[in-house]
């Protein structure tokens, strides 16, 4: 047993030796190190990494370090590090992270760095101007929800909600006769308010006014809430319980005719071998409005802590990252919608029916608000939206409570 203790210590001292040894392998300190934080999904990540590799081959004096962080975590980690005077040089993410970053003054206004001829190369929808400054340049627009349909089950996508319900009723059935439904007309992550927005806008509603005040206690909210509930309880074309992963699994297994999801998911359905198309989420018959999903850019910003000496290097890399070549690489692999005017005119974009359908949906979408108040609104919508679906609250009461809670949260947040 003494032997055991001894061997334990020998082992660990060996490990410590290894540790010290391995930490000595320092790289060439002459190189300029540029750090990028991003939250790109798996497929996109590889495109970015190979683009960066190419860049480093062309610029041997620069070492670029690309770090992935999950969206929420990127936001809080960036706030912590940038406020403490550190953090990455370039930060990539969805446009709504700009709201808090602007208030905390942890990103640089880009119009002071780039000249207007450079900025004019981009589609205006791909630039994020906020409070008079340009804070983010997108490498893609969209990130919006649309309707995916399994061509085997739905040859022609519905144009209106009543058509959708008709198709859905036919498709929702018990195939193997065990008394359990095993194919659904429509599935989506209906517990999350972000996925409720197309319905809200389809009935003419929106989350806030131009000043950032919540506008949730409206006729539109009530109607949209009731409509989602009716899809499940009256028309019975969506499952009893459906979160993101349930919807995803049902569509991948070919057990769902239609799905509401966004561009990030396309890769997975191709991989699963589903023959699918993309269409606009169908028109709401009552209002004649196209449901408008939230449209956002995802793009790059520059850390306020980047010093004068390093800035030229960072700017050069930044320009490369949003260049038409790199954007088109993304489009080729993932079907993202580019922001650079040259890239938008490219054949890869023009000839892809999925991208064109996605653009068509985007055209009826509404830009996602950048103000931090949106987070308070999500937090206020979530519990009451779920309460309506859980059958513990009626839609009128829920709309009223959402509004009340949103006002309270915004007040707490802004004090």
């Amino acid at each position: 047993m003494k032997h055991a203790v001894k061997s334990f210590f020998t082992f660990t001292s060996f490990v410590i030796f290894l540790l010290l040894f391995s930490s000595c392998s320092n790289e060439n300190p002459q190189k300029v190190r540029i750090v990028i934080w991003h939250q790109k999904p798996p497929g996109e990540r590889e495109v970015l990494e190979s683009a960066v590799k190419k860049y480093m081959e062309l610029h041997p004096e620069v070492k670029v370090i690309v770090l992935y962080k999950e969206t929420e975590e990127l936001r809080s980690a960036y706030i912590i590090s940038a406020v403490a005077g550190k953090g990455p040089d370039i930060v990539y993410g969805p446009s709504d992270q700009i709201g808090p970053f602007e208030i905390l003054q942890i990103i640089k206004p880009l119009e002071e760095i780039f000249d207007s001829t450079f900025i004019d190369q981009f589609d205006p929808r791909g630039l994020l101007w906020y409070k008079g400054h340009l804070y983010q340049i997108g490498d893609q627009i969209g990130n919006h929800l649309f309707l995916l349909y399994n061509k085997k089950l739905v040859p022609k996508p519905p144009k209106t909600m009543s058509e959708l319900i008709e198709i859905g009723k036919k498709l929702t059935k018990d195939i193997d006769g065990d008394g359990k439904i095993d194919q659904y007309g429509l599935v989506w992550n209906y517990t999350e308010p972000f996925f409720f927005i197309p319905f809200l806008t389809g009935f003419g509603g929106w989350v806030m006014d131009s000043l950032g005040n919540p506008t949730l206690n409206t006729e539109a909210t009530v109607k949209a809430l009731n409509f989602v509930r009716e899809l499940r309880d009256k028309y019975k074309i969506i499952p009893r319980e459906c979160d993101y992963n349930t919807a995803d699994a049902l569509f991948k297994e070919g057990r769902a005719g239609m799905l509401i999801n966004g561009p990030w998911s396309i890769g997975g359905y191709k991989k699963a071998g589903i023959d699918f198309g993309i269409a606009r989420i169908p028109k709401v018959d009552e209002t004649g409005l196209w449901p408008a999903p939230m449209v956002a850019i995802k793009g790059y910003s520059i850390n306020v802590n980047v010093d004068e000496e390093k800035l030229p290097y960072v700017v050069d890399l930044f320009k490369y990252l949003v260049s038409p070549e790199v954007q088109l690489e993304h489009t080729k692999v993932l079907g993202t919608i580019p922001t650079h005017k040259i890239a938008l005119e490219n054949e890869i974009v023009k000839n892809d029916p999925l991208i064109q359908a996605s653009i068509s949906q985007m055209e009826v979408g509404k830009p996602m608000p950048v103000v931090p108040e949106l987070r308070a609104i999500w937090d206020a919508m979530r519990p009451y939206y779920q309460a309506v679906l859980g059958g513990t609250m009626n839609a009128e009461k829920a709309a009223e409570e959402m509004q009340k809670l949103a006002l309270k949260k915004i007040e707490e947040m802004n004090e």
Partner: protein
Amino acid sequence: MDKNRAKKILVDALIYVFLIVFTLVVIYPILNVISISLRPADKLLSTSLRIVPENASLNSYVQLFTRTPFLRWLLNSTLISAVVMLTGVTLASTAGYALSRFRFLGKKAVMIGILITQMFPATMLLLPLYIMLIKLHLLNSYLGVIIIYTSTALPFCVWQMKGYYDTIPVSLEEAAMIDGCNQFQAFYKVVFPLALPALVITALFSFMSAWAEYVVAAQVLQEPELYTLAIGLKQFESSMATEWGLYAAGSLIVSIPAVLLFLFLSRYLISGLTLGSVKG
């Protein structure tokens, strides 16, 4: 006597049945994780209950080692955890001994103080901890995470060692000291070996608190070469497009070293080398 033996066999049989059923229930979710790792299209969920899915493939495991620097993460995590384990065992075995064997001023305060360090919600400690590490130049260094992990492992380990020492009669050391040992020798030669089961728990716990930790590691280690398994695994996650196959495969492989360590250590946890046998 025969009646007793029959009773014993019956009890043993019942225990076997119980253990088998219980173990099956316990490992069922893990079988599901295996199933996820074998699914071809990154599905976290499946509508079928089959453990080996249709078109099962080992692709995720292959990709894990070919497409990602998984071995590098494994090595990094092993280094960090091993050092935390060593410092944990060293510091907890000594501190626990001092707390078990001596009376001194402020001892109670120290004992409770140790627990207090664990009571503050960790979420809020992250920002000041980060600021502190920047000031100490410990960002992107293993030393930084090792110190933090050791500090989270120690409170339990120290208390646990102290508790175990308390069950070892002090007369053993007194005898040793009469035979000419000094206090340190009495500790190292007599008590330390007897506390082996507790040392095993301390080692295992220290190792585990470092092995799969994510939050601190992600904030401190921000260079790909320094990544640990937990940060690496997180790379497969993404807000809405997680690579579940890789994630599940990675998680399962991450658990193997921990289980091996337990297998190795549990020889000493349940060996016959207990107090009773030594004392007799």
